[in-house]
């Protein structure tokens, strides 16, 4: 019976190729637009993650901190916030010297003014502005701590950028979902009306709505799947073209591509159910 429904769907598609192709191209355009945003968001996310992974908190120690208290502090910070490494005054000076490079300038600074510090690579769940602010506040309360720096403003901007991209992707996603539902709904309406005589005859023979609708639903899902594959092809071509100019651009992961296809097919299924529940009532005797 399932083979029968698939054959019926294919028959319908072949007989109304014009309608089917129009639907496929419209869906491809909508899905490509959405996919472009998903791809952009995915790459931006990757970049943000890369940058975010380098976020760290620098805890400056008081000069009179003993080795044992420093070791205890390192243990506490590691346990509570993330991997903590000690940077001695000498090491800090060495790094500073390498960054400045100019011996004249270094001579002007005179003796090493830099304090010893601890660098805390925060756990992933703390890599956001609110959590970092709270962590910094807590760390500052340790008696050995002189000051805590984590680039609050920079972290906040990074978070805002990430949130903006996610909101944009969601908004475009919702718009495209509505566009898909609209395209499928109208295509199916036209297809059913074009096959009105068949629907009427089947209804008179006692076919249930489900029996009549199933081939149309399969046809809509097939069109959406084809459109999603075409769209992924366009996106891959676009990504290859951009990769030639910009390094580090990546395509959607296999699971993401599969999800993209799945969402398109699921939306087609939903739209066809909505369309058919209305259209069959209007057409069937």
């Amino acid at each position, binding site marked *: *019976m399932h083979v029968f429904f698939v054959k019926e769907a294919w028959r319908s598609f072949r007989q109304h190729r014009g309608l089917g192709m129009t639907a496929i191209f419209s869906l491809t355009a909508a899905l490509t637009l959405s996919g472009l945003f998903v791809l952009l968001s995915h790459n931006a996310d990757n970049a943000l993650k890369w940058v975010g992974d380098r976020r760290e908190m620098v805890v400056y120690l008081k000069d009179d901190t003993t080795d044992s208290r420093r070791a205890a502090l390192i243990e506490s910070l590691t346990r509570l916030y993330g991997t903590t490494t000690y940077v001695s005054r000498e090491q800090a000076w060495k790094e500073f010297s390498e960054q400045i490079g100019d011996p004249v300038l270094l001579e002007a600074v005179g003796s090493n003014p830099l304090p010893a510090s601890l660098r805390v690579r925060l756990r992933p769940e703390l890599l956001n502005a609110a959590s970092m602010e709270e962590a910094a506040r807590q760390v500052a309360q340790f008696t050995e701590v002189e000051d805590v720096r984590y680039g609050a403003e920079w972290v906040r901007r990074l978070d805002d950028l990430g949130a903006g991209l996610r909101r944009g992707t969601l908004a475009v996603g919702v718009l495209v979902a509505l566009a898909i539902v609209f395209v499928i709904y109208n295509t199916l309406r036209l297809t059913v009306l074009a096959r009105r005589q068949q629907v009427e005859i089947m209804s008179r023979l006692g*076919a249930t*709505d489900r*029996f009549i609708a199933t081939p149309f639903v399969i046809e809509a899902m097939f069109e959406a799947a084809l459109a999603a594959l075409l769209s992924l092809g366009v996106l891959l071509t676009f990504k290859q073209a951009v990769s030639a100019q910009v390094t580090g651009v990546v395509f959607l992961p296999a699971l993401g591509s599969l999800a993209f296809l799945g969402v398109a097919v699921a939306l087609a299924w939903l739209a066809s159910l909505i369309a058919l529940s209305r259209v069959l009532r209007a057409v069937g005797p």
Partner: protein
Amino acid sequence: MITFEQVTKRYGGRLALDAVSWHMDEGECVVFLGPSGAGKTTVLRLITHEIQPSTGSVTVGTFRTGRLTRSQRALLRRTLGIIYEDFRLLHDRTVFENVALAVRIVGRFAESDIGPRVRTALEEVGLNGMESAFPAELSAGEKQRAAIARAIVNRPAVVLADEPTGALEAESAADVLRLLKTIHLEGAAVLLVTTREEVAAAVPGRVLRLVDGKLIEGAPAPAAGVTPIAAAAPIPPPDIAETGVAPASATG
């Protein structure tokens, strides 16, 4: 089997049926005879639940009008075999596929049983060897025989025929009427609707005359209190209703 009780049907201001009451038993043959616009097709459409009576009630088997959901209505139609004047075959399918569609819709048979069942029906109507022909390749008589094969392939309890010879020349019309007689003799109830006296005379059934929506000759309304077949009975579960009361003498 089929009961109309004081059924009136109006299309807007036009009266199509006027307080019509009649009853048809299992295995019976009834002919509705009357001129165009008398209300004959309205009778059929009420039976198939395409339309609802304005007043009165229509009972078909255990189904009573006014209470059916869309799936129950589909179930009711699956217990009937319907033949139309204009055949209503699907033009993009072969004769075999047209008949097989009715079997698939009923959904009681395995895929492997569909072929033999369809071939038996086609053989009964004399269309063996024409399985792969498309309707456009058939004569009017052959089309109607294909439509009859589709109507009887599921062995329905009732076959409804709406002017089945209307589009046929004399010889094909005679063939079709012979087929209907055979179907009736094998045990199915046949309800035939026609404008032609000679068609009514050719079928061995009770003739009910309809003129201007009124039943002017034929069986009276069923006696009070003898409302047959579960006028008040609940709708049965689908598996019971769907069995379609196939006559014992019918094949398949």
